């Protein structure tokens, strides 16, 4: 096994390619956020963008070797869930906390 910290070339390349691909997917999802015909379409697309950003944070932690970004990914996932639930409540009942 190689020494700690010295990763092979193809892992660095794979992480970088993954970052590029997932960022492009974020931009593609933004099309549906802007042009979705109804409000639930836009919320679903925002949810997909948040999930992609969570993946980007984990890939960034893999690239830099800093494990703090995985905690950041967890926080982003929690924020995305709260966003989805609160928008769903607001759309149906016109009120989040009664």
């Amino acid at each position, binding site marked *: *096994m*190689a020494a700690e910290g010295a*990763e*092979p070339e*193809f*892992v660095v390349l*794979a*992480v970088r*390619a*993954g970052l590029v*691909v*997932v960022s492009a*997917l974020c931009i*593609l*999802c933004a*099309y*549906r956020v802007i042009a979705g015909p*109804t*409000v*639930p*379409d836009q*919320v*679903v*697309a925002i*949810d*997909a963008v948040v*999930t*992609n950003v*969570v*993946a980007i944070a*984990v*890939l960034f*932690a*893999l690239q830099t070797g800093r*494990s*703090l970004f*995985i*905690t950041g*990914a*967890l926080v982003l*996932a*929690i924020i*995305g*869930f709260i966003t*989805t*639930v609160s*928008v*769903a*409540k607001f*759309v*149906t009942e016109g009120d989040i906390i009664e």
Partner: protein
Amino acid sequence: MLQSVLITVLIAVGCFFLTVGTIGLLRFPNVYNRMHATSKPTTLGTAAIFLAGFVRFGPGGAGLASLIGILFLFLTVPTGAHMIALAAQRMGVPFMEGVTWPDPADEDGD
């Protein structure tokens, strides 16, 4: 070496599933179909990338946080998708042809 290969394979699988989910989000005809496309494959893809983080950082510290992230995603994404589907149905977003919603009056009967 095995660790590096495993990380590469998991990143490839995650990117594949995320791409499938985004194509479904862009191409499917209806809110309900798009929700199906984003919730399942996107969850699988992000879980695969989290697993790559677990393989990279080991079972303590950040690797444990990765496993907690997988558990959290598998709990919350279906819940959010269900709530948005219910909201869309109550808003009056139409279904596709041939799809029906179970009538509450029928359920009271039996």
